[in-house]
């Protein structure tokens, strides 16, 4: 937007006309992203709240359902995401240094890791589908004592990991945008704000998973 206007008034790359200078613009973008992440935190917070309530209400049913979580896949996915956070950091760093090729390489690397996560997630969901562990009319549960409670817990499992997966998909989409922007030489050492912002978002989504994995897969697993 307003590229022609902006160049009329200023020469700093990427500076919008309503800001005084790049420093102010960068400060605004960063603060905006952090505020957005706070809203995300509250969004997931609602579900973590519900999770806490039901876990305390039905600890036995919970222990029983956690046996059906695929811990190996969950663990691999945790590793994949932590690694992708690293590649994202490296992408930001290369943007900072103005290394276009390295930047694109790391962005693609991050993108692939994101896709790997989603693929593994799909495998897990498919497993649940085969086992009739998807809440709803087709739900079945081996231990009939816990039929209803287990269904609620699987509901939470799908709501929480599903919301997380949606955020991953959005992140993957934004990585594609970043890659194409980088390929079109849109970033300079002086202006690479989008890379930095998407980086923040990516780390946030990873951190949510770092909480989801132990809470949904590990707790009660040994009982």
């Amino acid at each position: 937007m307003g590229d022609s206007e902006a160049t009329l008034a200023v020469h700093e790359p990427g500076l919008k006309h309503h800001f005084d200078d790049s420093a102010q613009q960068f400060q605004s973008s960063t603060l905006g992203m952090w505020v957005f992440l706070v809203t995300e935190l509250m969004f997931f917070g609602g579900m973590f709240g519900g999770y806490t309530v039901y876990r305390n209400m039905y600890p036995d049913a919970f222990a029983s359902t956690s046996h059906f979580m695929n811990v190996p896949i969950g663990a691999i996915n945790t590793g994949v995401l932590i690694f992708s956070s690293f590649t994202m950091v490296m992408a930001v760093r290369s943007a900072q240094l103005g290394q276009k090729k390295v930047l694109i390489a790391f962005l693609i690397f991050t993108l692939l890791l994101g896709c790997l996560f989603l693929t593994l997630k799909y495998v897990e969901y498919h497993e649940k589908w085969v086992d009739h562990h998807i809440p709803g009319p087709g739900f079945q549960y081996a231990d009939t004592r816990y039929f209803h409670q287990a269904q609620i817990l699987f509901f939470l499992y799908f709501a929480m990991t599903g919301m997380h997966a949606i955020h991953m998909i959005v992140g993957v989409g934004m990585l594609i945008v970043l890659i194409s922007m980088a390929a079109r030489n849109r970033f300079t050492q002086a202006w690479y704000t989008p890379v930095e912002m998407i980086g923040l978002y990516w780390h946030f989504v990873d951190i949510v998973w770092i909480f989801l994995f132990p809470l949904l897969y590990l707790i009660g697993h040994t009982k």
Partner: protein
Amino acid sequence: MSTYLPFARTEARTNYLNADYGWKSWLFTTDHKRIALLYLFSITAFFFVGGAFAVGMRVNLLTPEGIFAHDTYNKLFTMHGIIMVFFFLVPSIPATLGNFLVPLMIGARDLAFPRINLLSWYLYMIGGAIALTAIVKGGVDTGWTFYAPFSSTYSNTHVILTAIGVFVSGFSSILTGLNFIVTIHTMRAPGMTWGRLPLFVWGHYATSLIQVLGTPVIAITLVLLGLERVLHAGIFDPAVGGDPVLFQHLFWFYSHPAVYIMILPGMAVISEIIPCFSRKALFGYTFVAISSIAIAVLGFLVWGHHLFVAGQSMYASMVFSLLSFLVAIPSAIKVFNWTATMYKGSISYETPMLYAFGFIGLFTIGGLTGLFLATLAIDVHVTDTYFVIAHFHYIMVGGMVMAYLGGIHFWFPKISGRMYPEGWARFAALIVFVGFNLTFFPQFILGYQGMPRRYAHYPPEFQVLNVMSTAGASILAVGYLLPIIYLGWAWRKGPKAPQNPWNAKGLEWEQSPTPPPTYNFETQPVVTEPAYNYSGESEEVGIG
């Protein structure tokens, strides 16, 4: 500053209204002032849709047997509540006056994220369109509170569609709040310190905090509700081990703070009007500023007062009761400081000031009855009666809508460049005040006598008070229609406004032309004095 865009000074000055014409220049604008007007027109439309449902309810309640079927009546109060809360009152002042004025008041050229600002309006409109679709398809009957398991399991109306509408419009509210927070932090003009910010800006800052922290929670609550309605996994259904009270907790975790989204901006407007028409600095600036933040923070800790009879633990209720009393303190600080500002001021009675008087009186009644409700034993008697209805209408309609109208009149010259007819405006303000009290005061008595809310029929002994209430509502309707007519007229034909018709303080009046140019100021504004420096002292005044 070096990058400031110069403006050509021609004799017919270009301003944000005549800078560009055609529908594209409006629908694709990123100018915060034009977006404010887009919001103004759309929320006004929603206000009258919500009002139409209210008319239906009041007509039904003229007689004990009513005229509508029970199901229809359920839909009327639900759709009234949903439209009024989510599509009118939450965006009302922030998205219109706030959008228009926050950048002007802090000396910025626009909000930090102009395109996100436009996106927020589109989200609002899409959410509104979805909710209206649900209404046209037959409506919803869950109450604006969407309580489960009725909403998740039993209701056979368009719950999901409505919830999607509310969900989408929630993001417009989040984005407005995010934009304000960032703008207020990073875009203040030189000299505009936090201690010199107009209280309008402080109020909007506090509101934005709530929008950003609270709205995501209702969003996820509605997602869970929608999923449950599709899957019937039982998460909110007590019959299979789900917990309906959890829904209420999640709902009120947003919706109690949200009631402060619906009053803090009103307080923000009043804090501007009163010093101007008393020709005095606002008494206790620091206290009023901090009290906004205190309300925002405390507002997150009291949601349990909506669950006193929902099976919440007695000890939790006692804590929530105590915390609810505490919210009254910052609210009272504001009321005391406004009155202290007027003390020995040279008061004049222009329309905005009349609305401000109305606000103080009605908000006080609404707030004090809130304390009745926060008292456990009294609440058991009056919960789910018309007493609660009267309580929150005194605040939301008597407070917020009055402040909204007061603000619209106060800044009408700024927005339109024209003066409104003072005589008509005072007359309308009076009508609104009389109509409002006649509508809602009887409801306190009805509630106290035990008339429950949300029923289409009632015992005959309540009829007199109900007829009074309906009569008041028709007066109130006239009071709301009048401004539409004379403001619409004044927009085209009213006398041209000078830059600062009220001799008010503040960057928006003193340093920006009326109506403002697209980037608000012709030269970079610099602030050298505290807010509300009506006495002209150059010294910075401390606390008090």
